[in-house]
């Protein structure tokens, strides 16, 4: 592991900027999924999806009352996992 203060501050800055861009990209992807499962499947497309039934539940209704919540949980854990990886890749992790 490198020391906390590299010799050249410009490299440090470039690294921090690259880390931030990678972070924004990840957040963008995850929030798109967040939007699609709740506002998309649960609200805007609910009538279309309600024409499909899986195991006794209409799909649109399922996303609005159950499915979106399961995806939300998964999104936060994916975020946590990916960010921990990014932290190490860009050498900005704690400890």
């Amino acid at each position, binding site marked *: 592991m490198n020391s906390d203060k590299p010799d050249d501050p410009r490299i440090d800055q470039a690294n921090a900027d690259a880390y931030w861009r990678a972070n924004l990209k990840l957040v963008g992807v995850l929030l798109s999924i967040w939007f699609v499962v*709740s506002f998309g499947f649960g609200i805007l497309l609910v009538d279309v999806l309600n024409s499909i*039934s899986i195991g*006794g539940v*209409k799909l649109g209704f399922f996303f609005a*009352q*159950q499915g979106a919540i399961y995806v*939300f949980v998964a999104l936060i854990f994916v975020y946590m996992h990916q*960010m921990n990886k990014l932290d190490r890749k860009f050498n*900005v992790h704690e400890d």
Partner: protein
Amino acid sequence: MDVQTWIYLAVGGTFALYIGIAIWARAGSTSDFYVAGGGVNPIANGMATAADWMSAASFISMAGLIAFLGYQASPYLMGWTGGYVLLALLLAPYLRKFGKFTVPEFIGDRFYSRTARLVAVLCLVVASVTYVIGQMKGVGVAFGRFLEVEFETGVMIGMGIVFFYAVLGGMKGITYTQIAQYCVLIFAYTVPAIFISIQLTGVPLPQLGLGASMADGSGLALLDKLDQTVTELGFAKYTEPNGSTLNTFMLTLSLMIGTAGLPHVIIRFFTVPKVSDARKSAGYALVFIAILYTTAPAVGAMARMNLMDTIQTGPVGEATANLEYEKRPDWFRNWEATGLLRFEDKNSDGRIQYYNDQNPEFTALAERFGWQGNEMVEIDRDIMVLANPEIADLPAWVIGLVAAGGLAAALSTAAGLLLAISSAISHDLLKRTFTPNISEKQELRAGRVAMAGAVIVAGYLGMNPPGFAAQVVALAFGLAASSIFPALMLGIFSKRVNDKGAIAGMLAGLLSTLFYIFVFKGWLFIPGTNWLPNTAEHWLLGIQPESFGAIGALINFTVAIVVSRMSAEPPAEIQRLVESIRVPRGVGAATS
């Protein structure tokens, strides 16, 4: 043992537990008092956050709302969980890295402005006080119902308990009692749900029971049967939308943004040791919340099914297919005694007709049956969860458990809100604004006094609720969404937004949202002072006042960015501060 003994046992036992925890977890420093010393395990904090977040409304009211609104209740389910995604991805890790005690502190420091800090304190106090009154009222109602004491006595007992552990332990005492309260409330919520799911569908897991077939031999899926039953009586289809899509969309978005901006939830993430812990903690918080939130739709649908089946015992229109009033079950009689369930024999046939008499098509048909209006003139939605164990004929100890669970939900949320209020007063107003020279000991004492004052004010307002007490969703979520969330997000994601932009944005978001709410609900919620009737045809584009928070947030974002562009950029040290909160390394324990 009878029901009353079980209730005393469950409530008394859990209260003794909370007091024991309070004595063990006393606060010795301001860090203990504000952020529980900053060393809370992220999974434990997730559990405490879940109890902090899930209030009397989540525990008691939500399933009832779902039972009667069906699909239309979905914004509450998605909104109150989806907000955690925003919190986890956009706020919690950065605010943890910033490493201070309160939410207004971040806004004040990042926007290098005392005015910004004070605006944030004002929003926090109004949102939290509104919220806490509802909890105190919930405590009073639960005590009144279950322990058969006066409403005021109930509020007093609740205040006494919260006073004890919140004043003594601050965030530290609150955190550990919240963990215990989560265990009590989740157990109390899921046990009856499992029993009812088995009775109706044979599937023990309520989440799966919701999609299963009825165990009555009809072979119909529960939700299909429910759709059929309710439409046969003129009600809207349970699983399909029947309102404005735009309003549903905006309500969901407002609740999400509001959830992410509520200070009493945000400060919970200041208690974990590291930035990566804040991320993890948000994930676990949502897991613990989701256990209740994915059970609630099953509880709602099954409670509605049981209610309909109890009253309409055979084919609609057959004279003998409606329940005879004299043969009504015991739970029906019990709840009638409270006035929350009321029957009126409009056609004097001694039988109960429960149908939608607002539906002209069905009313015409009903007249041919000799029905003269819906005879269930009052069904309070809140009784669904509380009456569930009785409707399903569950053992007496389950009823005792539900009483303890409802109280745990209300008390844990009240304590979290009271801490947010008292830390804003003792830390943001006293230490950081008006009396910066006080010692840590003096500040800790000030924190305890502020907490004691907040408990007393909350208790008083719980007993004498002002007009705005019932407007928790509109006011608290509206303020959090339109003022606090955008300021926090811009403070992290933009280096360019400056003091003037942030203040102008917060005020624009706050005032536009308040204006929209007051136009329909009365100025300061005084009845009769509203400019327009609070009905769909008068709402702007069909958007109800509760859904306006997202638009207020949009106004805030726009104003803040435009005003910042037109004025000087923030000083270099502030830009460095923003850069430093964007990387996890170098985190310290939260300090003043």
